C-alpha cells in the first residue's frame, strides 16, 4: 500500500515535471513572440514611429507679420501698431463656458459689449483658435487672470499688436481702417492658396480706404514657429523660428497739417476738402466731415455705436470727398469757358448784354441770372469773375452738348481717374446717350443751358473737381490723383494709364483763364474778393453755389435744422500760386450758402498753410 502510494507519488511528480517543462517551453515561446514584436516595432519600424512621435509633439504655428506703418509726406505717423493685451478663450478647451465667463467677469469685469463681441466672433473662426473676450487689459487685470489661470482651462492672456490711428477722426476717410477678418474676408482669402498661407496667423485686414487698397503691401509675409506642445496643445517651448517679414511702410502724399487744418475749419459743418499737389497729382488733403473714430473699428465696434453712426443724419461714415456727388454749379464755368473757346463759340473779346435772364429761341422760358437785374454788357473774363450765368447759358448753347461733354470729359468729369483712392465715384457727365439710357428722354437745348452753369444733371465729387482744377492749373497736363508716394521710403512710380494731356488750340487760353480766375479774388467785382484780406499768395479760384434739390423728410427733425439743410451748398475751387501752381483744391461746405464767406476762406487758409511752409 505504501509502495503503491510511493509509486503513485513518484509518477505524479514525473508527470508534473513534464508538464512544468512543457509550460516553461510555452512561456519561452510566448516571451520570444513578445520580444520579436518589440524588435519589429523598435527596430524595423523605428523610423516610422520616430516620425510619428515627432509629428505628435512638434507643431508648426504661423506667426503674423507686423503690419506696415503709414506716414504722411512729412514723416508723421498716421497708422501704427501698439501692443495690447487681450484676454482669450479657446472654447474647445473650456468645460463649462458659462462658469468660466462668470469667473472672468469677477476677475476683470466683462461688459455686455465684450460678451456681444465674443458671441459674434464665435461664429466664424478656425477651430482651436483663441477668441478674444476682452481687449486692452491693464497690468492688474493681467495679474488677476494669470494667478487664477490654473482654474481656468482654455483661458489665456495674449499680447498682440493692434492697429492704432493716432489722429483718429481726422484721417478716418483718407486712411480707412483695419478690422477683424470676418467670414466674407475669410472666403476671399481662401480663394487663393497663397493668400490662405499668408493670412494663416493674421487676425485683422484692411477693410476700407488705404488700409484696404494697399492691403497686399502692408500685410507682410507670414513667419513660422516650430513649437513643442503636449497632448492638450499647451505650448511647452519653441524649437525653431522663421521670423515673419513685416509689411512695407507706406508714405502718403497727405500732409497732416492740411488734414488737421481741414478738420478744424470744417468743424460743426458738413463738407469736404480735397487738395492736390499740381506737379505730381499727389493728394495733400482728403477730408470729409463729419468723420468717425477708426480705432473703434479695429477692436470691433458695438452694435449701439455703429447704429448711432449709421442712423445719424450727418452720415459720418459717408466719405463726401470721394463719394459725395454735388452739382459743380459755377465752379464748372472756367471749364465751360475753355470748351467754348476751343469750339470757337466765344473768344475773350466776345461780349453779350445780360438783362438778367436768358431765353432760347422759340422758347418762352426764362433762364435767370443769379443777379436779378443782370450784369449789363459783359465779356468772358468778367463772366468768370462775376460768375455771370447769362453769359454761360449763351456760350453753352452756342457750343452745344456734343462739343461740351467730350471736352469736359478730358478733365476727368464722369470718370474715376484716381490711382488708389478706393471706392471713389464717377459722378455724372451727361450727354445725349446718358439721358436716353437713364432718363428715357432726348436731350433738350434747355439741358445744355443748365449744364452751362453746372446745374442740371451733372454731378462731381470734391475729388473730381480738385483733380480737374489741378489739370487746369497744370495747363492740361495730367497727373492722376494718388495717395501713395513711397514704399519703405522708395518712391513709387504710379502707372499713368493712357490719359492724354489736354491740347488747346490756343495754349494762351490757359493763362488767360488763370488770370480771369485770379480776378475772382483780386478783381473789384470778384465773387471771392473777401479773400483779399488774407492774401499771402496769389490764388486763382472760382466760387460755386449748388442748389439743394431736396431732402428726405424726417419727422423727428426740427424745422430750423431742416431749413438749414435746404440752404445751398457752397463750392470753391482754386489753385495757387497763379504764376507757378503748386496746389489745387476743391472745398464743399454743405448748406454753406455763400461760397465767398464759407468755402473760399477754408480753401485760402489751407493754401496759405501749404505754401507758407512750416511757419505758415
Amino acid at each position, binding site marked *: 500500500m505504501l509502495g503503491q502510494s*510511493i509509486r503513485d507519488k513518484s509518477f505524479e511528480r514525473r*508527470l508534473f515535471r513534464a*508538464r512544468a517543462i512543457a509550460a516553461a517551453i510555452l512561456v519561452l515561446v510566448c516571451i520570444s513572440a513578445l520580444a520579436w514584436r518589440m524588435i519589429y516595432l523598435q527596430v524595423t519600424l523605428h523610423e516610422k514611429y520616430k516620425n510619428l512621435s515627432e509629428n*505628435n509633439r512638434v507643431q508648426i504655428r504661423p506667426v503674423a507679420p507686423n503690419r506696415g506703418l503709414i506716414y504722411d509726406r512729412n514723416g508723421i505717423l498716421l497708422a501704427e501698431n501698439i501692443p495690447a493685451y487681450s484676454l482669450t478663450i479657446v472654447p474647445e478647451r473650456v468645460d463649462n463656458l458659462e462658469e468660466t465667463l462668470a469667473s472672468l467677469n469677477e476677475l476683470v469685469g466683462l461688459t455686455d459689449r465684450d460678451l456681444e463681441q465674443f458671441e459674434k466672433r464665435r461664429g466664424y473662426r478656425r477651430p482651436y483658435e483663441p477668441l478674444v473676450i476682452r481687449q486692452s487689459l491693464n497690468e492688474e487685470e493681467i495679474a488677476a487672470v494669470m494667478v487664477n489661470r490654473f482654474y481656468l482651462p482654455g483661458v489665456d492672456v495674449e499680447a498682440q499688436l493692434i492697429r492704432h490711428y493716432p489722429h483718429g477722426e481726422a484721417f478716418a476717410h483718407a486712411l480707412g481702417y483695419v478690422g477683424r477678418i470676418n467670414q466674407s474676408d475669410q472666403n476671399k482669402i481662401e480663394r487663393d492658396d497663397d493668400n490662405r498661407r499668408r493670412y494663416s496667423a493674421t487676425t485683422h485686414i484692411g477693410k476700407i480706404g488705404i488700409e484696404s487698397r494697399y492691403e497686399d503691401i502692408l500685410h507682410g509675409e507670414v513667419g513660422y514657429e516650430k513649437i513643442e506642445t503636449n497632448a*492638450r496643445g499647451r505650448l511647452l517651448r519653441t524649437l525653431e523660428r522663421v521670423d515673419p517679414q513685416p509689411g512695407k511702410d507706406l508714405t502718403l502724399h497727405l500732409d497732416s497739417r492740411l488734414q488737421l487744418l481741414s478738420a478744424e475749419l470744417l468743424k460743426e459743418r458738413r463738407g469736404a476738402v480735397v487738395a492736390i499737389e499740381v506737379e505730381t497729382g499727389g493728394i495733400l488733403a482728403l477730408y470729409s466731415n463729419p468723420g468717425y473714430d477708426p480705432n473703434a473699428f479695429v477692436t470691433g465696434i458695438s452694435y449701439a455705436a455703429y447704429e448711432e453712426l449709421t442712423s445719424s443724419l450727418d452720415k459720418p461714415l459717408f466719405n463726401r470727398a470721394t463719394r459725395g456727388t454735388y452739382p459743380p454749379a459755377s465752379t464748372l464755368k472756367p471749364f465751360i469757358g475753355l470748351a467754348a473757346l476751343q469750339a470757337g463759340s466765344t473768344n475773350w473779346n466776345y461780349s453779350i448784354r445780360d438783362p438778367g435772364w436768358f431765353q432760347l429761341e422759340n422758347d418762352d422760358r426764362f433762364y435767370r441770372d443769379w443777379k436779378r437785374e443782370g450784369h449789363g454788357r459783359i465779356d468772358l473774363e468778367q463772366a468768370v469773375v462775376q460768375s455771370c450765368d447769362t453769359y454761360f447759358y449763351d456760350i453753352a448753347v452756342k457750343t452745344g452738348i456734343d462739343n461740351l461733354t467730350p471736352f469736359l470729359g478730358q478733365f476727368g468729369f464722369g470718370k474715376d481717374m484716381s490711382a488708389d483712392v478706393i471706392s471713389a465715384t464717377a459722378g455724372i457727365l451727361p450727354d445725349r446717350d446718358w439721358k436716353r439710357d437713364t432718363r428715357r428722354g432726348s436731350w433738350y437745348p434747355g439741358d445744355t443751358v443748365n449744364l452751362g452753369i453746372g446745374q442740371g444733371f451733372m454731378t462731381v465729387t470734391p475729388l473730381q473737381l480738385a483733380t480737374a482744377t489741378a489739370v487746369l492749373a497744370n495747363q492740361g497736363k495730367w497727373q492722376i490723383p494718388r495717395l501713395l508716394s513711397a514704399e519703405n521710403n522708395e518712391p513709387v512710380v504710379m502707372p499713368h494709364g493712357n490719359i492724354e494731356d489736354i491740347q488747346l488750340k490756343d495754349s494762351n487760353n490757359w493763362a488767360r483763364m488763370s488770370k480771369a480766375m485770379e480776378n475772382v479774388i483780386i478783381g473789384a467785382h470778384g465773387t471771392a474778393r473777401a479773400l483779399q484780406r488774407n492774401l499771402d499768395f496769389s490764388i486763382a479760384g472760382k466760387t460755386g453755389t449748388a442748389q439743394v434739390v431736396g431732402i428726405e423728410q424726417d419727422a423727428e427733425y426740427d424745422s430750423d435744422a431742416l431749413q438749414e439743410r435746404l440752404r445751398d451748398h457752397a463750392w470753391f475751387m482754386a489753385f495757387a500760386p497763379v504764376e507757378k501752381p503748386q496746389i489745387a483744391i476743391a472745398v464743399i461746405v454743405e448748406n454753406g450758402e455763400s461760397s465767398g464767406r464759407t468755402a473760399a476762406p477754408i480753401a485760402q487758409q489751407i493754401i496759405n498753410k501749404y505754401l507758407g511752409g512750416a511757419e505758415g
Partner: protein
Amino acid sequence: MASTDFSRTISTPAQHHTFERSGALFARVHIDLILLLLIVLLACCGLLILYSGSGQDIGVVKRQAIHFALGGVAMLVAAQIPPRAYQLIAPWALAFGSLLLIGVLVAGVGAKGAQRWLDLPGALPRFQPSELVKLALPLAVAWFMASRPVPPRFRDLIQALAIIMIPTVLILKQPDLGTSILISTSGLLVLFFAGMSWALIGSMIAIVTALAPVMWFFVMHAYQKQRVLTFLNPESDPLGSGWNIIQSKTAIGSGGLHGKGFLQGTQSQLEFLPESHTDFIIAVLAEEQGLIGVCLLLTLYTLIILRCLYISSRCETLFGRLLSGSMSVTFFIYVFVNIGMVSGILPVVGVPLPLVSYGGTSVISLLLGFGLIMSMYTHRQKK
C-alpha cells in the same frame, strides 16, 4: 528503487545543503530567497518606470511603495500558513467568492455598463469579488484534483470543469469577458498540470476556437466587440478607441534600440500616451529605455516564472504543485496579455502589467499569490 527515488527527490540533505545553509533564516520564515530577490528587483524597476510614467509624480510612487509594503506583508503572512490550511479553506473560499459574485450581480455598483464592485458598509474600501476568486478558483480546483488520482479520470475532469464554470459564468454576467477568461484559464491550468491528456487539451482548444464566433454573436457586448475591432484595425478610429493603441505603438517604436532616455520620452512625458502609469506603462519603458530595457524586463519576468515553475515542481504535495504551477503560469499570462495588448498583437483588455503598473489591488493580490507559492514550497510535512 522507488524508495530511493522518493528520498532523493524530496529530502536528500546534500541536494539542499547550500540553500538551507545560506537561506536558513529565509527557510525558517518560509521565504524563497531567489524568488524574493527577483521580485524585489522587479519592484524597484517598476517604481522607477512608474515615476516616469506618472509624469514624475513622487506621490504616486510613494503610494505604490506602500502597496508593495502591504503586499510584502501579505506575502510573508501567506507563506507562514501551511498548505494544509489552504487545502481546508479552498472549497469554502470559492463558495464564499461565488456568493459575493452573485451579490455583485444583485446589488453591485459599477461603471461603463458593467457591475464589478461591492460597496461594503462603513469605511471599508470598495471591493471587487473577482479579485478574491482569482485566488479561490485555482485553490478549489487544486483541492479537488489533489484528492483524485492522476492523471485525472474523465469523470473528474467534467466535475472540475463544472467548478470552473460557476465563477466564470458569474463574472461573464457582470460583464467582464477578460477577467472571466483569465480566471477560467487559471482553473484549466490546474487540470493541465494534473496531467489532463494532450488529446483532451487539443480538443478543448478546438472547441473554444469553434465557440469564438458564437461568443461574438451571442455573448459579447458592444464595447467588447469594439475593442476587438479596434485591435484588428486601430487606424479606423484614431481619435477614439484607436488612440490608445496608436499612441502606445508610437511610443514603443520611437524608443528604438536605446530609447530616448529616462524621463525623456516625448510620448509619455507630453501626455500623448494614455494610462501611462497603469495599463500602458510598458510603453513608457519601451520609449525611454528602448529595446534593451524591454528585453531586460522580459528577462526578469522569465526568470521569475521559471523560478516559480521550478519550485512548483519541488513542492511536497500534489495540491501544492497544482496550485503553484497554475499560479505561475497565470502570472505569466498577465505579463503576456498586457505586453501583447500594448504592443498591438492582442486586443485591449484591462490587464495591468504585473508589479509595474500602478494599482494596490493588483500588487497586493500578486504578492499574496507569491506568498502562497512559497508556502507550498517551503512547508514540509512533519515525519
